[in-house]
Protein backbone atom coordinates (compact mmCIF):
# COMPACT_ATOMS: atom_id res chain seq x y z
CA UNK A 1 0.00 0.00 0.00
CA UNK A 2 1.33 3.42 -0.86
CA UNK A 3 1.97 5.82 1.94
CA UNK A 4 0.27 9.16 2.18
CA UNK A 5 1.87 12.43 3.18
CA UNK A 6 -0.17 15.49 4.05
CA UNK A 7 1.44 18.93 4.18
CA UNK A 8 -0.48 21.65 6.00
CA UNK A 9 0.26 25.13 4.62
CA UNK A 10 0.94 25.90 0.93
CA UNK A 11 4.03 27.88 1.84
CA UNK A 12 7.68 28.34 0.83
CA UNK A 13 8.46 25.34 3.03
CA UNK A 14 5.74 23.27 1.33
CA UNK A 15 7.06 24.09 -2.14
CA UNK A 16 10.52 22.85 -1.17
CA UNK A 17 9.21 19.89 0.78
CA UNK A 18 7.23 18.46 -2.15
CA UNK A 19 10.27 18.74 -4.41
CA UNK A 20 12.69 17.30 -1.88
CA UNK A 21 10.32 14.44 -1.04
CA UNK A 22 10.24 13.28 -4.66
CA UNK A 23 13.99 13.79 -5.05
CA UNK A 24 14.47 11.79 -1.86
CA UNK A 25 12.47 8.88 -3.24
CA UNK A 26 9.04 9.35 -1.61
CA UNK A 27 6.72 7.37 -3.85
CA UNK A 28 3.46 7.77 -1.99
CA UNK A 29 0.76 10.39 -2.25
CA UNK A 30 1.55 14.01 -1.45
CA UNK A 31 -1.34 16.33 -0.61
CA UNK A 32 -0.81 20.01 0.26
CA UNK A 33 -3.65 21.74 2.08
CA UNK A 34 -3.53 25.54 2.11
CA UNK A 35 -6.14 28.18 2.86
CA UNK A 36 -5.17 30.63 0.11
CA UNK A 37 -6.38 30.22 -3.49
CA UNK A 38 -2.81 30.07 -4.81
CA UNK A 39 0.03 27.68 -5.37
CA UNK A 40 2.99 28.45 -3.08
CA UNK A 41 4.39 31.87 -3.95
CA UNK A 42 7.31 34.10 -2.98
CA UNK A 43 6.34 36.29 -0.04
CA UNK A 44 9.40 38.56 0.29
CA UNK A 45 8.63 40.54 -2.91
CA UNK A 46 5.13 41.43 -1.62
CA UNK A 47 6.48 44.47 0.22
CA UNK A 48 9.07 45.18 -2.45
CA UNK A 49 8.89 44.45 -6.19
CA UNK A 50 5.24 43.38 -6.15
CA UNK A 51 3.97 46.43 -4.26
CA UNK A 52 6.02 48.84 -6.36
CA UNK A 53 4.66 47.22 -9.52
CA UNK A 54 7.83 45.62 -10.90
CA UNK A 55 6.49 42.08 -10.43
CA UNK A 56 3.06 40.57 -10.99
CA UNK A 57 1.30 37.85 -8.99
CA UNK A 58 2.21 35.43 -11.77
CA UNK A 59 5.91 36.24 -11.31
CA UNK A 60 5.72 35.26 -7.66
CA UNK A 61 4.62 31.65 -8.11
CA UNK A 62 7.52 29.47 -6.93
CA UNK A 63 6.78 26.58 -9.30
CA UNK A 64 4.05 26.29 -11.93
CA UNK A 65 1.07 23.92 -11.81
CA UNK A 66 2.64 21.75 -14.53
CA UNK A 67 5.61 21.06 -12.27
CA UNK A 68 3.40 19.74 -9.46
CA UNK A 69 1.37 17.68 -11.96
CA UNK A 70 4.55 16.04 -13.21
CA UNK A 71 5.61 15.37 -9.63
CA UNK A 72 2.14 14.04 -8.81
CA UNK A 73 1.59 16.53 -6.00
CA UNK A 74 -2.03 17.38 -5.16
CA UNK A 75 -3.20 20.72 -3.82
CA UNK A 76 -6.40 21.43 -1.99
CA UNK A 77 -7.67 24.79 -0.82
CA UNK A 78 -9.10 24.11 2.59
CA UNK A 79 -8.52 24.61 6.26
CA UNK A 80 -7.44 21.97 8.74
CA UNK A 81 -9.22 22.39 12.06
CA UNK A 82 -7.87 19.41 13.94
CA UNK A 83 -5.02 16.91 13.96
CA UNK A 84 -5.72 13.53 15.55
CA UNK A 85 -2.33 11.97 16.14
CA UNK A 86 -3.66 8.70 17.49
CA UNK A 87 -5.84 8.01 14.45
CA UNK A 88 -3.32 9.75 12.16
CA UNK A 89 -5.97 11.94 10.60
CA UNK A 90 -6.57 15.61 9.95
CA UNK A 91 -10.06 17.11 10.03
CA UNK A 92 -11.06 19.75 7.49
CA UNK A 93 -13.40 22.68 8.10
CA UNK A 94 -16.36 20.71 6.66
CA UNK A 95 -15.75 17.81 9.03
CA UNK A 96 -14.11 15.54 6.45
CA UNK A 97 -11.28 13.41 7.82
CA UNK A 98 -8.15 12.54 5.84
CA UNK A 99 -5.67 9.89 6.93
CA UNK A 100 -1.91 10.29 6.79
CA UNK A 101 1.20 8.22 7.29
CA UNK A 102 3.42 11.28 7.55
CA UNK A 103 2.30 14.81 8.34
CA UNK A 104 4.28 18.01 7.69
CA UNK A 105 3.41 21.27 9.42
CA UNK A 106 4.40 24.24 7.25
CA UNK A 107 1.89 26.73 8.59
CA UNK A 108 4.17 29.74 8.85
CA UNK A 109 3.24 32.77 10.85
CA UNK A 110 0.55 35.42 10.83
CA UNK A 111 0.64 39.14 11.51
CA UNK A 112 0.33 40.47 15.02
CA UNK A 113 -2.86 42.52 15.03
CA UNK A 114 -3.45 45.63 17.06
CA UNK A 115 -6.74 46.34 18.74
CA UNK A 116 -7.28 50.11 18.82
CA UNK A 117 -10.31 52.33 18.27
CA UNK A 118 -11.08 52.55 14.55
CA UNK A 119 -8.80 49.67 13.59
CA UNK A 120 -11.48 48.10 11.38
CA UNK A 121 -11.88 51.12 9.09
CA UNK A 122 -11.33 50.61 5.38
CA UNK A 123 -7.86 51.53 4.24
CA UNK A 124 -6.13 49.94 7.24
CA UNK A 125 -4.01 46.99 6.18
CA UNK A 126 -1.57 44.38 7.33
CA UNK A 127 0.91 42.80 4.95
CA UNK A 128 1.41 39.07 4.90
CA UNK A 129 -0.47 37.55 1.97
CA UNK A 130 -0.84 38.26 -1.70
CA UNK A 131 -4.40 39.42 -1.02
CA UNK A 132 -3.07 41.92 1.56
CA UNK A 133 -0.50 43.28 -0.88
CA UNK A 134 -3.09 43.51 -3.66
CA UNK A 135 -5.48 45.52 -1.53
CA UNK A 136 -2.69 47.87 -0.39
CA UNK A 137 -1.73 48.36 -4.01
CA UNK A 138 -5.32 49.03 -5.02
CA UNK A 139 -5.65 51.56 -2.23
CA UNK A 140 -2.38 53.36 -2.97
CA UNK A 141 -2.90 56.70 -4.67
CA UNK A 142 -0.33 59.23 -5.84
CA UNK A 143 0.15 62.26 -3.57
CA UNK A 144 -2.17 60.83 -0.90
CA UNK A 145 -0.91 60.18 2.64
CA UNK A 146 0.20 56.75 3.77
CA UNK A 147 1.04 56.02 7.41
CA UNK A 148 3.13 52.98 8.28
CA UNK A 149 2.82 51.76 11.87
CA UNK A 150 6.08 50.04 12.86
CA UNK A 151 9.61 50.78 11.70
CA UNK A 152 10.79 47.22 11.14
CA UNK A 153 11.90 45.74 7.81
CA UNK A 154 8.37 45.17 6.51
CA UNK A 155 7.31 48.69 7.44
CA UNK A 156 10.38 50.28 5.88
CA UNK A 157 10.20 48.22 2.69
CA UNK A 158 6.54 49.13 2.36
CA UNK A 159 7.40 52.79 2.94
CA UNK A 160 9.99 52.69 0.15
CA UNK A 161 7.58 50.95 -2.26
CA UNK A 162 4.71 53.37 -1.54
CA UNK A 163 7.12 56.26 -2.00
CA UNK A 164 7.98 54.85 -5.43
CA UNK A 165 4.24 54.92 -6.16
CA UNK A 166 4.26 58.63 -5.35
CA UNK A 167 2.57 58.60 -1.95
CA UNK A 168 3.40 60.92 0.96
CA UNK A 169 4.69 58.44 3.51
CA UNK A 170 5.14 58.64 7.29
CA UNK A 171 6.56 55.84 9.47
CA UNK A 172 5.61 55.75 13.16
CA UNK A 173 7.94 53.88 15.51
CA UNK A 174 7.33 53.33 19.23
CA UNK A 175 11.00 52.81 20.05
CA UNK A 176 13.63 55.56 20.06
CA UNK A 177 14.90 54.31 16.69
CA UNK A 178 13.72 52.24 13.73
CA UNK A 179 14.96 48.62 13.41
CA UNK A 180 15.87 48.68 17.12
CA UNK A 181 15.04 45.00 17.66
CA UNK A 182 17.37 43.80 14.91
CA UNK A 183 20.22 46.23 14.25
CA UNK A 184 22.83 48.45 15.87
CA UNK A 185 22.17 52.20 16.19
CA UNK A 186 24.64 52.80 13.32
CA UNK A 187 22.41 50.90 10.89
CA UNK A 188 19.20 52.47 12.22
CA UNK A 189 20.70 55.92 11.70
CA UNK A 190 21.69 55.10 8.16
CA UNK A 191 18.22 53.87 7.21
CA UNK A 192 16.59 56.79 8.98
CA UNK A 193 18.66 59.15 6.86
CA UNK A 194 18.07 57.15 3.67
CA UNK A 195 14.30 57.31 4.10
CA UNK A 196 14.38 60.98 5.05
CA UNK A 197 16.41 61.76 1.94
CA UNK A 198 13.82 59.92 -0.13
CA UNK A 199 11.04 62.03 1.31
CA UNK A 200 9.69 59.65 3.96
CA UNK A 201 8.92 61.17 7.35
CA UNK A 202 10.07 58.95 10.22
CA UNK A 203 8.78 59.70 13.71
CA UNK A 204 10.35 57.78 16.60
CA UNK A 205 9.13 57.49 20.20
CA UNK A 206 5.51 57.68 19.17
CA UNK A 207 2.62 55.31 19.76
CA UNK A 208 -0.71 55.15 17.98
CA UNK A 209 -3.87 55.45 20.05
CA UNK A 210 -6.45 55.04 17.28
CA UNK A 211 -7.75 55.73 13.80
CA UNK A 212 -10.51 58.08 12.67
CA UNK A 213 -12.70 58.32 9.59
CA UNK A 214 -16.22 57.63 8.40
CA UNK A 215 -16.03 54.30 6.65
CA UNK A 216 -12.52 54.85 5.30
CA UNK A 217 -9.59 55.89 7.48
CA UNK A 218 -8.84 59.62 7.33
CA UNK A 219 -6.35 60.13 10.12
CA UNK A 220 -4.12 58.38 12.62
CA UNK A 221 -4.29 59.67 16.20
CA UNK A 222 -1.20 59.34 18.37
CA UNK A 223 -0.92 59.00 22.15
CA UNK A 224 0.72 62.42 22.42
CA UNK A 225 -2.36 63.99 20.85
CA UNK A 226 -0.85 64.59 17.43
CA UNK A 227 -2.74 63.55 14.31
CA UNK A 228 -1.58 62.52 10.86
CA UNK A 229 -3.72 62.56 7.73
CA UNK A 230 -3.99 59.05 6.27
CA UNK A 231 -5.61 57.65 3.16
CA UNK A 232 -3.82 54.36 3.67
CA UNK A 233 -2.43 52.72 6.82
CA UNK A 234 -0.15 49.69 6.86
CA UNK A 235 0.52 48.06 10.22
CA UNK A 236 3.74 46.07 10.48
CA UNK A 237 4.35 45.17 14.10
CA UNK A 238 5.62 41.64 13.83
CA UNK A 239 4.28 38.13 13.35
CA UNK A 240 3.17 35.21 15.52
CA UNK A 241 3.86 31.56 14.68
CA UNK A 242 0.84 29.45 13.71
CA UNK A 243 1.14 26.79 16.37
CA UNK A 244 -2.42 26.39 17.70
CA UNK A 245 -3.26 23.26 15.68
CA UNK A 246 -0.06 21.61 16.79
CA UNK A 247 -0.56 22.57 20.40
CA UNK A 248 -4.17 21.35 20.44
CA UNK A 249 -3.00 17.98 19.13
CA UNK A 250 -0.62 17.65 22.05
CA UNK A 251 2.65 18.35 20.24
CA UNK A 252 5.27 20.17 22.29
CA UNK A 253 5.13 23.89 21.51
CA UNK A 254 7.23 26.64 23.06
CA UNK A 255 7.56 29.79 20.95
CA UNK A 256 7.15 27.61 17.88
CA UNK A 257 6.63 23.90 17.33
CA UNK A 258 9.57 22.19 18.97
CA UNK A 259 11.57 20.11 16.50
CA UNK A 260 14.78 18.13 16.79
CA UNK A 261 17.82 18.61 14.56
CA UNK A 262 16.07 16.71 11.77
CA UNK A 263 12.87 18.79 11.97
CA UNK A 264 10.89 15.98 13.60
CA UNK A 265 8.34 17.12 16.20
CA UNK A 266 7.59 15.33 19.46
CA UNK A 267 5.57 12.87 17.30
CA UNK A 268 7.84 10.74 15.06
CA UNK A 269 5.25 10.80 12.24
CA UNK A 270 5.07 14.57 12.17
CA UNK A 271 7.69 17.00 10.89
CA UNK A 272 7.57 20.78 10.83
CA UNK A 273 9.43 23.44 8.85
CA UNK A 274 9.65 27.22 8.54
CA UNK A 275 8.45 30.16 10.63
CA UNK A 276 6.29 27.96 12.87
CA UNK A 277 9.17 25.89 14.27
CA UNK A 278 11.60 26.22 17.15
CA UNK A 279 14.90 24.47 16.51
CA UNK A 280 18.31 24.31 18.14
CA UNK A 281 20.92 26.36 16.29
CA UNK A 282 24.25 24.59 16.53
CA UNK A 283 26.10 27.78 15.60
CA UNK A 284 24.52 29.86 18.35
CA UNK A 285 23.95 26.97 20.76
CA UNK A 286 20.41 28.03 21.61
CA UNK A 287 16.91 27.30 20.41
CA UNK A 288 15.58 29.83 17.90
CA UNK A 289 12.51 30.53 15.85
CA UNK A 290 13.31 32.23 12.56
CA UNK A 291 11.16 34.19 10.14
CA UNK A 292 12.95 33.79 6.83
CA UNK A 293 12.74 32.05 3.48
CA UNK A 294 16.20 30.40 3.58
CA UNK A 295 15.27 28.90 6.93
CA UNK A 296 11.96 27.57 5.56
CA UNK A 297 13.74 26.05 2.57
CA UNK A 298 16.54 24.45 4.57
CA UNK A 299 14.19 23.06 7.18
CA UNK A 300 11.93 21.68 4.44
CA UNK A 301 14.90 19.81 2.93
CA UNK A 302 15.75 18.47 6.37
CA UNK A 303 12.15 17.45 7.06
CA UNK A 304 11.87 15.73 3.66
CA UNK A 305 14.98 13.69 4.39
CA UNK A 306 13.47 12.59 7.72
CA UNK A 307 10.25 11.54 6.00
CA UNK A 308 12.30 9.50 3.54
CA UNK A 309 14.00 7.80 6.51
CA UNK A 310 17.38 9.44 6.10
CA UNK A 311 18.75 11.87 8.62
CA UNK A 312 20.40 14.97 7.30
CA UNK A 313 20.34 18.47 8.74
CA UNK A 314 20.46 21.02 5.89
CA UNK A 315 20.14 24.07 8.11
CA UNK A 316 22.97 26.59 7.99
CA UNK A 317 23.65 30.06 9.28
CA UNK A 318 20.48 32.19 9.40
CA UNK A 319 20.51 34.96 6.83
CA UNK A 320 18.11 37.60 5.59
CA UNK A 321 17.86 40.36 3.04
CA UNK A 322 15.97 43.60 2.62
CA UNK A 323 15.57 45.80 -0.46
CA UNK A 324 14.81 49.46 0.11
CA UNK A 325 15.06 51.94 -2.76
CA UNK A 326 18.06 50.81 -4.79
CA UNK A 327 19.93 49.41 -1.79
CA UNK A 328 20.41 45.78 -0.97
CA UNK A 329 20.92 44.88 2.66
CA UNK A 330 22.18 41.37 3.28
CA UNK A 331 22.27 40.16 6.86
CA UNK A 332 24.39 37.23 7.98
CA UNK A 333 23.67 35.68 11.36
CA UNK A 334 21.87 36.92 14.46
CA UNK A 335 23.26 39.96 16.28
CA UNK A 336 21.57 39.45 19.68
CA UNK A 337 24.10 39.59 22.50
CA UNK A 338 26.86 41.47 20.68
CA UNK A 339 29.35 43.48 22.74
CA UNK A 340 31.34 45.16 19.98
CA UNK A 341 30.58 46.86 16.67
CA UNK A 342 33.05 47.30 13.84
CA UNK A 343 32.12 49.39 10.79
CA UNK A 344 33.79 48.88 7.42
CA UNK A 345 33.33 51.63 4.86
CA UNK A 346 31.76 55.03 5.38
CA UNK A 347 28.11 54.86 6.35
CA UNK A 348 27.79 58.64 6.53
CA UNK A 349 29.01 59.62 3.08
CA UNK A 350 28.42 56.46 1.02
CA UNK A 351 25.71 53.86 0.53
CA UNK A 352 28.05 50.93 0.75
CA UNK A 353 29.29 49.66 4.11
CA UNK A 354 29.20 46.71 6.46
CA UNK A 355 28.58 46.58 10.20
CA UNK A 356 30.10 43.61 12.00
CA UNK A 357 28.73 42.42 15.34
CA UNK A 358 31.20 40.68 17.63
CA UNK A 359 30.79 38.88 20.92
CA UNK A 360 33.90 38.21 22.99
CA UNK A 361 35.98 38.93 19.88
CA UNK A 362 34.14 36.45 17.64
CA UNK A 363 32.00 37.61 14.73
CA UNK A 364 28.34 36.66 15.29
CA UNK A 365 26.51 38.73 12.66
CA UNK A 366 26.94 41.32 9.91
CA UNK A 367 24.68 43.86 8.22
CA UNK A 368 26.02 44.47 4.71
CA UNK A 369 24.63 47.35 2.65
CA UNK A 370 25.57 46.93 -1.01
CA UNK A 371 28.47 44.77 0.16
CA UNK A 372 27.87 41.26 -1.18
CA UNK A 373 31.47 40.18 -0.63
CA UNK A 374 31.48 41.17 3.02
CA UNK A 375 28.20 39.26 3.34
CA UNK A 376 29.67 36.07 1.90
CA UNK A 377 32.82 36.50 3.98
CA UNK A 378 30.76 36.95 7.14
CA UNK A 379 28.67 33.87 6.45
CA UNK A 380 31.83 31.82 6.29
CA UNK A 381 33.52 33.40 9.32
CA UNK A 382 30.44 32.94 11.51
CA UNK A 383 29.43 29.49 10.34
CA UNK A 384 32.95 28.14 10.75
CA UNK A 385 33.72 30.13 13.89
CA UNK A 386 36.83 31.70 12.39
CA UNK A 387 38.26 34.64 14.33
CA UNK A 388 39.56 37.66 12.39
CA UNK A 389 41.11 40.61 14.23
CA UNK A 390 38.55 43.47 14.31
CA UNK A 391 41.19 45.80 12.80
CA UNK A 392 41.17 43.68 9.63
CA UNK A 393 37.39 43.68 9.43
CA UNK A 394 37.43 47.44 9.79
CA UNK A 395 40.20 48.07 7.24
CA UNK A 396 38.43 48.76 3.96
CA UNK A 397 41.75 48.73 2.09
CA UNK A 398 41.93 44.93 2.55
CA UNK A 399 39.41 43.42 0.10
CA UNK A 400 37.02 40.85 1.56
CA UNK A 401 38.28 38.38 -1.00
CA UNK A 402 41.83 38.74 0.30
CA UNK A 403 40.71 37.96 3.84
CA UNK A 404 38.97 34.88 2.51
CA UNK A 405 42.06 33.78 0.62
CA UNK A 406 44.21 34.27 3.72
CA UNK A 407 41.90 31.97 5.65
CA UNK A 408 41.94 29.50 2.80
CA UNK A 409 45.73 29.67 2.85
CA UNK A 410 45.63 28.46 6.43
CA UNK A 411 43.10 25.71 5.92
CA UNK A 412 44.25 24.73 2.44
CA UNK A 413 41.30 25.54 0.20
CA UNK A 414 38.58 28.04 -0.49
CA UNK A 415 35.29 26.31 0.07
CA UNK A 416 31.86 27.22 1.32
CA UNK A 417 29.70 24.81 3.18
Amino acid sequence: MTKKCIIIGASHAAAQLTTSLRQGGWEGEILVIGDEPHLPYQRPPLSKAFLSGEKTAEDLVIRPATFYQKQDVQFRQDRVIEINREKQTVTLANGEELGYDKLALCMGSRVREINLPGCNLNGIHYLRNLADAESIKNNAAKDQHAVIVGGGYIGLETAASLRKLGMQVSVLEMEPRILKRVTAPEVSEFYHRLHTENGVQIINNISVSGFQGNSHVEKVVCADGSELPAHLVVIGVGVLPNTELAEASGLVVNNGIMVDEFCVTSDPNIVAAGDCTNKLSKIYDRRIRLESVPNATEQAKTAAASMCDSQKDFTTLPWFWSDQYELKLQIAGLSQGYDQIVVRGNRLTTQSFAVFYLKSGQLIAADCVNRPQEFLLSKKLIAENIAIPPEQLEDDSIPAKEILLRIAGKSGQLTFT
Partner: protein
Amino acid sequence: MGNITFVEHDGTEHAVEIEPGKSLMDLALDNGIPGIDADCGGECACGTCHVIVEGNGVSITGSASDAELQMLDLTPERADSSRLACQIVISDAMDGMIARLPEFQM
Protein backbone atom coordinates in the same frame (compact mmCIF):
# COMPACT_ATOMS: atom_id res chain seq x y z
CA MET B 1 11.45 26.08 -30.00
CA GLY B 2 14.77 24.91 -28.72
CA ASN B 3 16.49 23.51 -25.68
CA ILE B 4 18.84 24.52 -22.91
CA THR B 5 20.77 21.72 -21.25
CA PHE B 6 21.62 21.78 -17.55
CA VAL B 7 24.51 19.50 -16.65
CA GLU B 8 24.87 18.45 -13.03
CA HIS B 9 28.29 18.14 -11.44
CA ASP B 10 28.16 14.35 -11.81
CA GLY B 11 27.48 14.70 -15.54
CA THR B 12 23.73 14.06 -15.48
CA GLU B 13 22.12 16.05 -18.28
CA HIS B 14 18.68 17.67 -18.26
CA ALA B 15 17.53 19.14 -21.58
CA VAL B 16 14.61 21.51 -21.09
CA GLU B 17 12.53 23.47 -23.53
CA ILE B 18 13.24 27.17 -23.86
CA GLU B 19 10.66 29.56 -22.43
CA PRO B 20 11.57 33.06 -23.63
CA GLY B 21 11.23 35.83 -21.07
CA LYS B 22 11.70 33.55 -18.07
CA SER B 23 14.86 33.67 -16.00
CA LEU B 24 17.26 30.75 -16.31
CA MET B 25 16.79 30.19 -12.57
CA ASP B 26 13.01 29.89 -12.94
CA LEU B 27 13.45 27.52 -15.85
CA ALA B 28 15.65 25.32 -13.65
CA LEU B 29 13.18 25.45 -10.75
CA ASP B 30 10.16 24.81 -12.94
CA ASN B 31 11.84 21.70 -14.31
CA GLY B 32 13.08 20.46 -10.95
CA ILE B 33 16.77 20.66 -11.82
CA PRO B 34 18.75 19.59 -8.75
CA GLY B 35 21.69 21.79 -7.84
CA ILE B 36 19.99 25.17 -8.19
CA ASP B 37 18.99 26.22 -4.70
CA ALA B 38 17.72 29.72 -5.53
CA ASP B 39 17.23 30.59 -1.88
CA CYS B 40 16.29 34.23 -2.43
CA GLY B 41 13.93 33.64 -5.34
CA GLY B 42 15.89 35.64 -7.88
CA GLU B 43 16.96 38.80 -6.08
CA CYS B 44 20.70 38.44 -6.71
CA ALA B 45 20.99 38.23 -2.92
CA CYS B 46 22.25 34.77 -2.13
CA GLY B 47 24.47 33.41 -4.90
CA THR B 48 22.86 29.97 -4.82
CA CYS B 49 21.96 29.76 -8.53
CA HIS B 50 25.51 29.75 -9.89
CA VAL B 51 25.86 28.26 -13.37
CA ILE B 52 28.76 28.09 -15.80
CA VAL B 53 27.53 28.95 -19.26
CA GLU B 54 28.94 27.04 -22.21
CA GLY B 55 28.27 26.52 -25.87
CA ASN B 56 26.77 29.47 -27.68
CA GLY B 57 25.50 30.88 -24.39
CA VAL B 58 28.51 32.97 -23.49
CA SER B 59 28.02 35.64 -26.11
CA ILE B 60 24.22 35.60 -25.98
CA THR B 61 23.64 35.88 -22.24
CA GLY B 62 25.54 39.16 -22.05
CA SER B 63 27.71 40.13 -19.13
CA ALA B 64 27.09 40.14 -15.41
CA SER B 65 26.12 43.31 -13.54
CA ASP B 66 28.42 44.74 -10.91
CA ALA B 67 26.46 43.25 -8.00
CA GLU B 68 26.39 39.88 -9.71
CA LEU B 69 30.13 40.00 -10.39
CA GLN B 70 30.84 40.78 -6.77
CA MET B 71 28.81 37.75 -5.65
CA LEU B 72 30.45 35.53 -8.25
CA ASP B 73 33.92 36.73 -7.38
CA LEU B 74 33.86 34.79 -4.11
CA THR B 75 32.34 31.67 -5.57
CA PRO B 76 34.70 28.75 -5.05
CA GLU B 77 34.07 27.14 -8.44
CA ARG B 78 34.16 30.42 -10.33
CA ALA B 79 34.87 30.19 -14.07
CA ASP B 80 35.22 32.90 -16.72
CA SER B 81 31.67 32.31 -17.90
CA SER B 82 30.09 32.00 -14.45
CA ARG B 83 26.70 33.64 -14.04
CA LEU B 84 23.87 33.75 -11.56
CA ALA B 85 20.97 32.04 -13.31
CA CYS B 86 18.46 34.49 -11.81
CA GLN B 87 20.07 37.32 -13.77
CA ILE B 88 19.81 35.66 -17.19
CA VAL B 89 16.62 36.27 -19.17
CA ILE B 90 16.02 33.47 -21.63
CA SER B 91 15.58 34.14 -25.34
CA ASP B 92 15.07 31.90 -28.36
CA ALA B 93 18.65 32.63 -29.35
CA MET B 94 19.81 30.49 -26.42
CA ASP B 95 18.87 27.26 -28.20
CA GLY B 96 21.68 24.77 -27.64
CA MET B 97 23.11 26.54 -24.62
CA ILE B 98 24.69 24.46 -21.89
CA ALA B 99 24.52 25.53 -18.24
CA ARG B 100 26.94 23.55 -16.13
CA LEU B 101 26.17 23.34 -12.40
CA PRO B 102 28.90 23.57 -9.77
CA GLU B 103 29.39 20.88 -7.16
CA PHE B 104 28.35 23.24 -4.36
CA GLN B 105 26.28 26.37 -4.30
CA MET B 106 27.30 29.08 -1.85
